[in-house]
């Protein structure tokens, strides 16, 4: 029983990380249809931000966290400016920005790889080793509640939704499409960077951390469905619980344990192709 409770906390924390990455995908996919696989590298940038500010310069945690968040918003906005807007303005097919962002993934990773030593870099806990899981869960809850309220309760959020439902109609209604796109990328980078900062005390900041996070977050997104904000979190939690319960309780050799959640997910998707939650 003790094991199960511990595992619940640990899987919930991992699930929150996956959920934040899935949220980053979702914030960009909803209004623009663009899947941005560079979210994993954004998380890496966030983690390195944490290393620099919190470990190296020893800033107080809240200040460092706020600085990383602001920096990530700028990074997201810049990414949109460089790799997305020129293509969207030219009316390029949807695949073009997706691919340009894949290129940006390489640029981000290599920029970090050539600027820092290849070894992992430590990032401190917010409140100590025993409380990090709870801190992750708390911050993620705040983020998700905030995003949910934004979409459900504010005019700006409604305009995002309008763009998600029908771009052209939204534009005719006077919504500034390019501003919505820029904001969605900034917010996506914010969510991803936060995920990176939160997970980095565990996994450390290193140049290869991005792609696994991108894959885990993508899986969470597909499970939860791209329709609703809550789906991202639910998908993340489901994936993390599947992973950790399999490792802990499934009677199979350790090497194969990593494969089981993947198989479960495939099966799940066959039964429920739109993900857990459908769009409203």
């Amino acid at each position, binding site marked *: 029983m003790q094991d199960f409770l511990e595992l619940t906390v640990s899987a919930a924390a991992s699930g929150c990380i996956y959920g934040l990455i899935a949220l980053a995908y979702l914030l960009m996919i909803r209004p623009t249809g663009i899947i941005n696989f560079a979210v994993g590298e954004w998380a890496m940038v966030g983690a390195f931000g944490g290393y620099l500010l919190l470990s190296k310069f020893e800033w107080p945690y809240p200040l460092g966290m706020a600085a990383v968040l602001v920096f990530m918003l700028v990074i997201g906005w810049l990414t949109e400016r460089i790799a997305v807007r020129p293509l969207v303005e030219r009316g390029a097919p949807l695949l073009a920005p997706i691919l340009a962002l894949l290129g940006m993934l390489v640029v981000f990773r290599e920029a970090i*790889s050539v600027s820092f030593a290849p070894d992992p870099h430590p990032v401190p806990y917010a409140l100590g080793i025993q409380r990090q899981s709870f801190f992750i869960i708390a911050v993620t809850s705040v983020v998700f509640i905030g995003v949910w309220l934004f979409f459900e309760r504010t005019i700006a959020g409604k305009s995002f939704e309008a763009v998600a439902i029908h771009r052209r109609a939204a534009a005719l209604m006077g919504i500034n499409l390019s501003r919505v796109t820029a904001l969605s990328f900034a917010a996506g980078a914010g969510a991803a960077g936060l995920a990176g900062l939160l997970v980095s005390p565990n996994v450390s900041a290193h140049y290869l951390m991005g792609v696994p996070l991108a894959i885990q977050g993508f899986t969470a997104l597909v499970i939860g469905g791209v329709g609703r904000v809550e789906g991202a979190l639910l998908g993340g939690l489901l994936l993390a619980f599947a992973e950790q319960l399999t490792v802990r309780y499934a009677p199979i050799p350790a090497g194969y344990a990593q494969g089981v959640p*993947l*198989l479960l997910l495939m099966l799940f998707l*066959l039964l429920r*192709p739109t993900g857990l939650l459908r769009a409203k």
Partner: protein
Amino acid sequence: MSSLLRWLGAALLLAGAAFLLSDYHNDVYRKLLLWVTLALSYNFLFGICGQIAFSHFAFYGIGAYSVVIFLFQFHLPFPLAILLGIALCILFALAVAIPSARLEGFYLALATLALAQLFIVVLNEGGAVTGGPGGLANYKLPEFLGTRIRGPWYTAVIVLLLLGTLAVLWRLDRSWFGRACRAVRDNPEVAAAMGVDVARTKVTAFTLTSALAGIAGMVYAFVDNTVNPPIFGLDNAFLLLFMVIVGGAGRHAGAIIGAALLFLVPFVLSPLIGHHHVLVFGVLVVAAILLQPRGLVGLYDAIRRHP
């Protein structure tokens, strides 16, 4: 007749080149030809049929490993080993494609991502059969009529593989099936309305291109006479995607140009700028897409149109 001559000429030219090259350049040439072959079949799947899959390298690996295992672990005769290897690829491809075809959007991407990861897990855990993380080595291409094909002659075999793959894809692309694939890519609803069986088209294209990747893998198995897990990992699957994009998705010429360029970039840039070459590679990819979303082949078209 003239088209047959043209193919023959290409074969002679490409294979002949191998006999003029040094060992090193021959090796790079062989691997380049294999990448081009893979890019061609992947281009059909991704560029022409519009399916995003990350399993192409896993099928390359299934082909490579299966032929080695059937030949040297189970001691089956050569033709049987090849046929069984292809059958295995088709089987796995169907198992992934049939369920995925019912689903939309990213599900094939996810399913193939899972397949690619599972494949590596199985290779690592396979014990004596797959050789585990060290892979399999210490085998040689079986002899035919008392001689073993090696050196530039083996390069010629790869040239045949490339041209064979290209010929198959070329014919398909111009057939009814190719048009159906493009229709499915551009708008599945319209394609269905036109009487195209969307699911069947997707499954057929996926299975066929995966089998082609498997055959290329069988040829790869005897390039260095060793197979090991890292070759067939996800990194290379992403690289393949980049190649098709940079060259120009949906065009055979694009796949060839993209594969050649991106495969050769590290060989050329690494000695010049050291470990920054990957950064340059990333910038190149972004720049290529920004400047010409239809890839380098699109750039070529644009130049030809407005000289």
